[in-house]
């Protein structure tokens, strides 16, 4: 017994080192699905998010001009949509401003408080939380295209997993041929403005500068939101698929504003998705 205590005393630094190291490893590998990690030890907790919010409010003045331009373009687009909002019923009738017609998607504008784009697993923080009705698995779109999906919500802030994160996955459509593909961001090969599309059949006619858009299949985004345009195509003979590289529409290095997407029929849709 005495020898054991002497041994522990002799190697106490090493043992303490091992203890702390295993604590760090425990955090590292239990981090992805851990309640405590998401609620207290991530950058959306009140202290660090508050500091990052302060930083963003300091630096947001420097890019007001670009943000204004983006907002003006967005305004024009929205105005066009609201003015032309007609619902076609049958072949002849056009109804407008119908009270029975329920809106499928609602949008809420948010500021992006902190954005990462040069790390391996990037994350964003937005300044809306459970108080504003944000729930996990809501989509976030920007002024030009898709940004990401909400993963974690606290009272006033929420964390968003952007497209440029290896854990982000989405089924997307080729705009011209309606071919389905899988979106994938590979950190070793892509930087913050490119992304890969897999599983497009080899006979699909894809050209450069074609757009890829969201499919709307899981109800997270509306159908037809742009994701990116094709910059290179290569054929994968073994799998009989095309490997396509996209240039993302949204510039992830200068994200300032975004729009949260709320699907009014999400619960109803989830029943069908589960049923499959």
């Amino acid at each position, binding site marked *: 017994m005495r020898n054991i205590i002497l041994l522990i005393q002799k190697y*106490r*630094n*090493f043992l*303490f*080192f091992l203890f*702390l*190291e295993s*604590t*760090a*490893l*425990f*955090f*590292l*590998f239990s*981090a992805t699905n851990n309640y405590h*990690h998401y609620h207290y*030890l*991530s*950058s959306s*907790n009140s202290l*660090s998010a508050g*500091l*990052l919010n302060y*930083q963003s409010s300091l*630096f947001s003045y420097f890019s007001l001009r670009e943000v204004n331009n983006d907002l003006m373009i967005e305004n024009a687009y929205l105005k066009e949509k609201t003015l032309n909002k007609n619902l076609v019923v049958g072949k002849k009738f056009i109804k407008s401003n119908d009270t029975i017609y329920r809106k499928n998607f609602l949008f809420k504008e948010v500021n992006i408080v902190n954005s*990462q*784009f*040069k*790390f*391996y*697993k990037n*994350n964003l923080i937005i300044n809306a939380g459970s108080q504003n009705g944000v729930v996990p698995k809501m989509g976030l779109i920007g002024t030009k295209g898709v940004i990401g999906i909400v993963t974690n919500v606290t009272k006033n802030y929420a964390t968003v997993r952007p497209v440029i994160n290896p854990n982000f996955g989405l089924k997307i459509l080729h705009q011209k041929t309606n071919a389905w593909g899988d979106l994938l961001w590979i*950190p*070793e090969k892509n*930087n*913050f*403005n490119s992304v890969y599309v897999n599983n497009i059949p080899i006979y699909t006619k894809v050209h450069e500068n074609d757009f890829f858009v969201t499919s709307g299949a899981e109800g997270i985004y509306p159908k037809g939101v742009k994701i990116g345009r094709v910059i290179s195509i290569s054929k994968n003979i073994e799998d009989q698929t095309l490997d396509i590289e996209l240039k993302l529409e949204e510039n992830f*290095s*200068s994200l300032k504003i975004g729009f949260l997407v709320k699907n009014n029929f999400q619960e109803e849709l989830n029943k069908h998705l589960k049923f499959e």
Partner: protein
Amino acid sequence: MILEFKNIAWFLGLIIFQIFVIDAIDLGTYSYFFSPIIIAFFILKQRLSTTVFQLLIIAFFLGMITDIFRNTLGLNTFVLLMITYLKPTFLYSITSTEDIEKDVELNIFNIGILRFLLFFGSSLFFYHLLFFLIEQFSFQNLFTLLLRSLINTISSLMVLLFLQYVFISRK
């Protein structure tokens, strides 16, 4: 003594500089290669009379705070603890035991530029290499990884040189 005012200021200052200045620098496409981590300087510069036990505790909290801000829980902590434990190995592989006094801080003015570059360079290179390896968790693209570590080591050395010339008063 590790709890003196100067040390606390360096502790907070390095974290703030790391998160709000270095991580906020945007170099466009090249940002992938520019993500130096300089918090290890706090551990490496401590006097030789500081016990390993104290250093390990400090390293744990330093790494944890940085991790919480950068959303990489446990990653910086792991590498920083490793660096803390291997600090004597790095130091005594480039210099003999009697060369450096026990109660001086290991900054550029006290140990000289050559020893500073060798000691901090080798340990920071090890830091970045281990960090990127664990982050990626595979040996793919090893050459790119080495290149990234090298570039980040050089840039962090430059940042540290700048910080020391600005904030440490010479006698």
